[in-house]
């Protein structure tokens, strides 16, 4: 299996998953009992209004046709149009994309910065108290939902100490120039809430990846040529542990997006999460459909990239010979 076919295989898998996911979304939203138009307008709506809506958006067509129309629109970058407001999904998503992206990206970075050293300590000192402390800390982080962490942080930093605002958002670049400080201080607590939970999850995987490294033969070789334990762990261990860490990041992405949705709600941030939740409240099915597909699509794309990155990190996969092969 050469590199090209390995890449192709993954791309095909991605496409198939995307199609499967879109089908799932469509079925969940449209194929459930209840008339779509009726649901959207509510039980109090008049039959004429319902009929008008159905005709306007071709809701009489069979599900398959509507699905095909939706998917077809995707090819041109059209995620659908909200039946409720008449605006396109894309136009509603665009201004809110930035907020969610900032939130998730910063959270990932912070989580990594915390988890990698914490995991290394937990691994190196796993038989001593420092390791126990590191592990206990991550256990606590795992048991706490992100929004509870957020609320606690708000209590400490916004209510008691009054250092940071409790909610709200100011964009980085407004009509009157840059607002770095206001932008940053409104992101600190939300990012921290997400990152605390993520760091705990990552720490566990980082720890076990490094514990495995510590027991490898080549780690022992590295020490025998003169690397101290820490330097050997850093120099040789990180690259080998990176594979597990990258894997877990990819798997966690979906969870992080969900966490971001909730955190946005806690802190009233105008991101995709709050858009989605408002849409659910309004029974704006098209908007829900479109945004969910966007989110799921993003997760699938990231996982594809993670998959492809393995080919870069692990040289054994590059030659297509799999692991443990030898030539002569």
């Amino acid at each position, binding site marked *: 299996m050469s590199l090209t076919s390995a890449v192709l295989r993954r791309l095909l898998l991605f496409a198939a998953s995307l199609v499967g996911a879109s089908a799932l979304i469509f079925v969940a939203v*449209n194929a459930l009992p209840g008339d779509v138009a009726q649901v959207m307008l509510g039980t109090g709506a008049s039959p004429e209004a319902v009929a008008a809506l159905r005709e306007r958006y071709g809701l009489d067509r069979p599900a398959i046709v509507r699905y095909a129309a939706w998917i077809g629109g995707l090819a041109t970058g059209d995620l659908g149009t909200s039946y409720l407001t008449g605006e396109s999904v894309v136009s509603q998503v665009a201004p809110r994309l930035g907020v969610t992206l900032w939130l998730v990206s910063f959270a990932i970075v912070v989580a990594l910065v915390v988890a990698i050293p914490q995991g290394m300590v937990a691994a190196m000192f796993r038989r001593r108290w420092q390791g126990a402390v590191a592990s206990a800390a991550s256990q606590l982080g795992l048991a706490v939902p992100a*929004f509870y962490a957020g609320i606690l942080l708000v209590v400490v930093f916004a209510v008691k100490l009054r250092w940071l605002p409790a909610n709200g958002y100011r964009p980085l670049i407004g009509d009157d120039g840059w607002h770095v400080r206001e932008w940053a201080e409104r992101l600190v607590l939300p990012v921290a809430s997400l990152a605390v939970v993520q760091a705990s999850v990552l720490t566990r995987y980082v720890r076990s990846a490094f514990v495995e490294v510590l027991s490898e033969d080549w780690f022992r070789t590295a020490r025998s040529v003169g690397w101290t334990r820490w330097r050997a762990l850093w120099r040789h261990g990180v690259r080998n542990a990176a594979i597990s860490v990258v894997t877990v990041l990819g798997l966690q992405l979906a969870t992080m997006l969900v966490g971001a949705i909730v955190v946005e709600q806690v802190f009233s941030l105008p991101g995709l999460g709050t858009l989605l939740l408002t849409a659910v409240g309004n029974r704006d099915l098209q908007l829900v459909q479109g945004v*969910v597909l966007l989110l799921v699509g993003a997760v699938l794309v990231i996982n594809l990239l993670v998959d492809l990155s393995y080919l870069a990190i692990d040289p054994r996969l590059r030659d297509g010979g799999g692991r443990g092969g030898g030539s002569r």
Partner: protein
Amino acid sequence: MKRAPLYLGAVLVGLVVLAALGSLVWTPYDPAAIVGPKLAAPSFAHPVGTDHLGRDVISRLLVGARATVAVGVVAVALAAGGGVPLGLIAGMSDGRYAQGRRGAWLSEALMRAVDVLYAFPALLLAILLAAAVGASTATAMVAIGVATIPAFARIARAATLTVMTQDFVLAARASGTSVGATAVRHVLPNIAPVLGVQASVSFGIAILAEAGLSYLGLATPPPTPTWGRMLREGQNVLFGAPEQALWPGLAIAVAVLGLNLLGDGLRDLLDPRLREVS
């Protein structure tokens, strides 16, 4: 000392289950009734105080445990019921005496299909269901259950593959046992311990998910108290009475911590090197 996590976890989980079951029989006050001043501080009459409407918080916490436990149990049961057979089939068709390439293909295809679900965390599924039919306890259970199917499918498949390489399975097949009987009588009992560990871990995740859904209003609707919604109500009075938000969150943390410790303890009990459970 080594078994401490296991025992601690069992105790915490036991507390929560006890609260849930006990609340069916008795609570200090009617959780829906207004029995005191609003936002009263903890006192002998109300050990954890009252909420923003004057209802006793402890009673609400106890009843809230019901929703938590119920959703967790049903969701995990759904996930196991859906995921384990899938994983079992995938594992057995991938085995040494499967139909060769066709079997491996089936195994692969099954797992790929299940993997699509990995991109759908419980919240997204719950959002989809809520948009279509309105939020309720049932939609929460289904959403969380379906979202957890991939985890069970994967672990069931991995464990099945391990069991399949053992000689007693080969012997069973060689003596004429059908595939179905082999699955039920030989494979299932041997993968059960690993599935048990996964169940504990998934239960914890389910509780976190339910709390999140409740917080967002996408699970059990009022007036039934749920820990997640109590957190939301507490957040509304954060600046005046920050303790209101403290207790339900603590309850959630205790429950999840207990389940995680239990899962870890069980895993260590079975085999210290078990690493596949996620």
